[in-house]
């Protein structure tokens, strides 16, 4: 049922004006990500330039900036400076990304350092080991501890759905995280996100796993009226896949979530394909990879 429902969202025909609008919306929702050991300040600065103006050819209307640039904590000051004056937010992974296997104290320090360096958003990983072993309270306590450190910064909680083994686990984990984050405090709309994956393993943001998160978010909204955000990440490379996600969001949680405040797509090469598709829709000829700035 789950797979069938998720697959049904890929059957919609999106053409012409709706396609252009969808592509633009998808660009504005991208968390442009680079999480490599080899990331250098130069590479990251180039990425920031792309984040601010993703399309080197001026189009009418202009292609929007992406939502955020997502990097390791050490690079936050550089990104902060490169993005100054733009609408693009600074997102940093933290808490012993990607495995989350460091001691809690170090994971909190990691988060603290990213916040102090100026991160607007924190992408944390949960202890999947603890969750799979049934130590749910430990996971909930961790989320709350990191949330405490985050202060005003928005928090995205990575479940790493590829490691949770079953759809039931994914749903339970999403419920657990959302409940933990909103138990003792009034959470604003979009202040907390659930995110599928680190992007470091496969499978990552599959349609069924994103659907599970969306359903969890929808049920939470129906019960409390608070809008939790959703961020699929990992393995989303084609514009078509991004449009499928937007359809799923629209038909699961509704129009309200079709904004970068509540829905993000974590990706790196997706942006190239989105821009190429936009160039195709406006110029009528297929763009080459070198037509869009490749970082």
């Amino acid at each position, binding site marked *: 049922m789950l797979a069938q429902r998720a697959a049904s969202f890929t059957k919609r025909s999106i053409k012409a004006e709706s396609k252009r609008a969808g592509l633009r919306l998808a660009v504005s929702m991208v968390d442009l990500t680079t999480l490599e050991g080899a990331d250098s300040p130069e590479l990251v600065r180039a990425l920031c330039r792309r984040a601010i103006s993703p399309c080197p050819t001026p189009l009418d209307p202009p292609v929007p900036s992406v939502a955020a640039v997502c990097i390791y904590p050490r690079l936050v000051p550089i990104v902060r400076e490169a993005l100054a004056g733009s609408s693009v937010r600074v997102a940093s992974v933290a808490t012993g990304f990607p495995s989350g296997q460091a001691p809690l104290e170090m994971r909190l320090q990691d988060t603290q350092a990213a916040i102090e360096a100026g991160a607007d958003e924190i992408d944390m990983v949960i202890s999947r080991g603890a969750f799979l072993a049934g130590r749910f309270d430990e996971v909930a306590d961790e989320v709350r501890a990191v949330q405490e450190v985050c202060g005003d910064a928005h928090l995205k909680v990575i479940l790493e759905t590829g490691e949770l083994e079953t759809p039931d686990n994914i749903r339970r984990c999403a419920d657990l995280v959302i409940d933990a984050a909103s138990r003792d405090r009034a959470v604003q709309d979009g202040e907390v996100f659930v995110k599928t994956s680190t992007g470091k393993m496969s499978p990552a943001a599959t349609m069924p796993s994103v659907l599970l998160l969306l359903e969890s978010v929808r049920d939470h909204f129906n019960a409390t009226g608070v809008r939790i955000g959703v961020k699929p990440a990992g393995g989303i490379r084609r514009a078509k896949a991004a449009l499928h996600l937007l359809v799923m969001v629209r038909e699961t949680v509704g129009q309200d979530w079709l904004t970068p405040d509540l829905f993000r797509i974590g990706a790196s090469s997706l942006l190239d394909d989105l821009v190429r598709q936009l160039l195709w829709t406006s110029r*009528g*000829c*297929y*763009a*080459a*990879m070198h*037509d869009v700035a490749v970082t």
Partner: protein
Amino acid sequence: MSRLEVIKTGKLWIGGKWPRSESGATFPVCNPQGEVVARCASASRKDSREAVEAARSGLSGWRDATATLRGQVMYRAAEMLEGRAAELAEALQVTGAGAAAARQEVEAAVDRLVMLAGWCDKIHQVLGCQNSVAGPYHCFTIPQPCGVIVAFSPPEPPLLSLVTLVGAAMSVGNAVVAVAPPQAALAAVLFGEVLAVSDVPAGAVNILTGTQKDLVEPLGTHREVAVVVSAGLGKSERMKLRNAAADGIRRVHAVPWTGAAWGDDQETCSPWFLEQFVEFKTLWHPSAT
């Protein structure tokens, strides 16, 4: 008990896989008696885009392979072609050639591939040179592959022309998207099957079949394409191709050969024909004196 008739379904060869056309469209291939002997996929605009994407990602595996290895792979393709000579000759007969002419064309195609395989590690010596310069430098000019080549092959001769165009572009290290017209579709599919078992990296060669004039515009305007070579197109299509290609400064070559001219080894394996598929790079290196 009588057997159920099993007729061939010719599909597209894109990125090392055999997909049907995205459009689902096919066309029948008939023998001179009007009987349907195969159904081939009719490539659409989107298929052509997929093929160029595949060629783009298959390019590095082929371009960066050593010239010797490329030669060996192409020679292996010639071996495979030889092994399937009877089947290919039969396919050519089905679509109208006489028995002797069909056999002759297949043999010529095998020989052509062997010859072009030989050029892989020799073309640099012929087209490249050392330039005399005023100053303490060694100055070399070397040929390099252009990138993705699109080749529109003619209906006649179906196999030999396709092998020549694909082989020539391959031998200097390019990735190829070949488009064969319906009359040549069966031979094109069989040639694809030959290449598929010859260690050609996935995507380095892609073969589409279908109505060529539908693909002139999407392939001609595709900015990832470096060179378009047209051998099967009419005058108005060639004009359309030139206009389409002008935007991205793509090269467009029209091959003048028709019919028996494709059998001329001197012309078709000439380094000056292969030169159409290379870019020249000049290097300056400080010398000791």
